[in-house]
């Protein structure tokens, strides 16, 4: 188990390194930082001066190593637009995105696990078909369109929830639903498929032969085994959630990392952009690592080798 965790950790570090390089070079190669810093309509001399002062005239590789070194020491530079240290900016926004990620993941699991279990236990019944219909329609709705429908319904028609901002829990309701519903169908299908497979396993027959009630057979003996692949999917879906948070946070002006990413991109705020891309990616790498370890821990065949 420990060897496995160490191996996964090593891979995670390598991936993080690769991501940092890509984040840096991709942004530097697709645009000129000096022009971005100087702002629109700047004179050529000013741009040249900026290039020199910021050290942007040196080879990219040198700049990358320097940037990486500074980033590793926690010095993320200063935002061009907000004029504040990027680290403070990011630390300020990170909790919001983590809360949103967790609530929307929780929402997705809360909807999809019961629905998936029901669909599997009553496979091919109307419940199963209803669950499938919800999943198929859910997957077809673009999240920004769904978010606007939510706004129309809850804020404009019912006047229950605030349209935008991030001051209270009420501001998180719609973003949570908008972000969570999109990953729920994948979970539901996986739970359903896993439960159908597990329910026909020999050990389920053993459990029934012991005279255990249906609830114990389904929830203790079947669901536990069906959930193992769900944990693995959770990591992948968290990636979708992080990406989706850019869109959803922007729509609801929820002041998190996703919104910051959007702002930094529209303002061509290089230092912030690089760090946010890196941070969201590293966050994903960490979550995958966590999910893998949890997965191994859930499966005694891996845990107790």
């Amino acid at each position: 188990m420990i060897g496995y965790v160490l191996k996964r950790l090593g891979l995670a570090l390598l991936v993080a390194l690769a991501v940092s390089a890509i984040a840096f070079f991709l942004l530097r190669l697709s645009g000129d930082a000096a022009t971005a810093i100087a702002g629109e309509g700047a004179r050529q001399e000013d741009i040249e001066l900026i290039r020199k002062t910021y050290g942007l005239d040196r080879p990219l590789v040198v700049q990358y190593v320097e940037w990486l070194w500074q980033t590793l020491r926690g010095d993320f530079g200063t935002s061009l637009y907000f004029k504040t240290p990027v680290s403070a900016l990011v630390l300020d926004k990170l909790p919001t995105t983590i809360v949103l990620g967790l609530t929307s993941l929780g929402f997705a699991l809360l909807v999809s696990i019961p629905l998936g279990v029901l669909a599997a236990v009553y496979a091919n019944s109307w419940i199963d078909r209803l669950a499938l219909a919800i999943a198929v329609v859910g997957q077809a709705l673009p999240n920004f369109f769904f978010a606007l429908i939510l706004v129309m319904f809850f804020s404009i028609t019912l006047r229950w929830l605030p349209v935008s901002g991030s001051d209270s829990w009420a501001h998180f309701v719609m973003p949570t639903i908008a972000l969570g519903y999109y990953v729920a169908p994948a979970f539901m299908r996986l739970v359903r498929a896993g439960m159908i497979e597990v329910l026909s396993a020999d050990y389920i027959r053993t459990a029934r032969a012991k005279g255990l009630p249906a609830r114990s057979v389904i929830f203790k003996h079947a669901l536990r085994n069906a959930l193992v692949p769900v944990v693995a999917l959770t990591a992948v879906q968290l990636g979708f959630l992080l990406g989706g948070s850019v869109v959803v946070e922007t729509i609801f002006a929820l002041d998190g990392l996703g919104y910051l990413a959007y702002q930094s991109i529209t303002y061509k705020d290089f230092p912030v952009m690089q760090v946010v891309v890196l941070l969201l990616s590293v966050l994903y790498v960490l979550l995958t690592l966590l999910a893998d370890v949890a997965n191994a821990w859930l499966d005694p065949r891996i845990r107790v080798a």
Partner: protein
Amino acid sequence: MSSLQNDVILAVDGLSVDIATQRGTLHAVRDISFEVKRGETLCLVGESGCGKSMTSLAIMDLLPKGATRRARRLAFAGEDLSRAGARRINALRGDRMAMIFQEPMTALNPAYTIGNQLVEAYRLHRKASEAEARERAVHLLGKVGIASAGERLGQYPHQLSGGLRQRVMIAMALMCGPDLLIADEPTTALDVTIQAQILRLLADLQRELGIAMVLITHDLGVVARIADRVAVMYAGQIVEEGPTAALFGNPRHPYTRGLIDCIPVPGRTQPGGKLGVIPGVVPSLVGDVRGCSFRDRCAFAREACAAAPPVHRAPDGQSWRCILENAA
């Protein structure tokens, strides 16, 4: 007969199992009847697909989806299971009647420890505390020949060999001290040397605890060693039934005779000599099956076999389903 009623733990009367398939209804078990007395071992023998597994699953109400059972009566300790509700069945299963399956490798839940799975039924049916249940589990693991039982409780199924797992399954089935134990080919999936050990264990436990046992097997050697009575199944029917000695000594049904001829006997079967072979294949059980289902393979078949064969009974308790009144 009525004075014996109390001794009968399981009375199956007119049990049929149908399975819906793409080609039509498969009559896996066709109107079979038999009884098992307390403390007795009945062996159900037959080739693959003769319906012996389906019979055992039907008794336990564990048939897979798509399979349905019908019975005039399915009496367990005098109570008709075919009319009992799911709650009543659950109360009996794992408590008064228990089952051991063919595949020890997959019959245990990989996600839980042996101990967890052992205590489950005992705690449920006996309302026992965890400590009591674990004590009972350790006791039974010792009884089925597992050393350092206490340690085993914390292990997972994948850490145990097939033979050990089957011992755990046996201990699990015995947790509540059942009246009836159904063992569906409990040794088929194991190595030959382990097979003998497990069978001996089952036979010893059965005798010691006085449990009635239905042992399903295709191995006549096993039958001869541990059965009190034998029921031979062919194509979903019991074609012959009787006390073990009588049935082996004087098989009345041509199929039983054929099966017995297939067993090599040390000393009697010459090396290189021919073993008996039953020619032909089992008929399809999909759709209507008329007449004697063995007639296509039977050396004694005649026209009358196209009609349902009569059931004969001998005074020694042997009965057979054939137009022949005496041994073939």
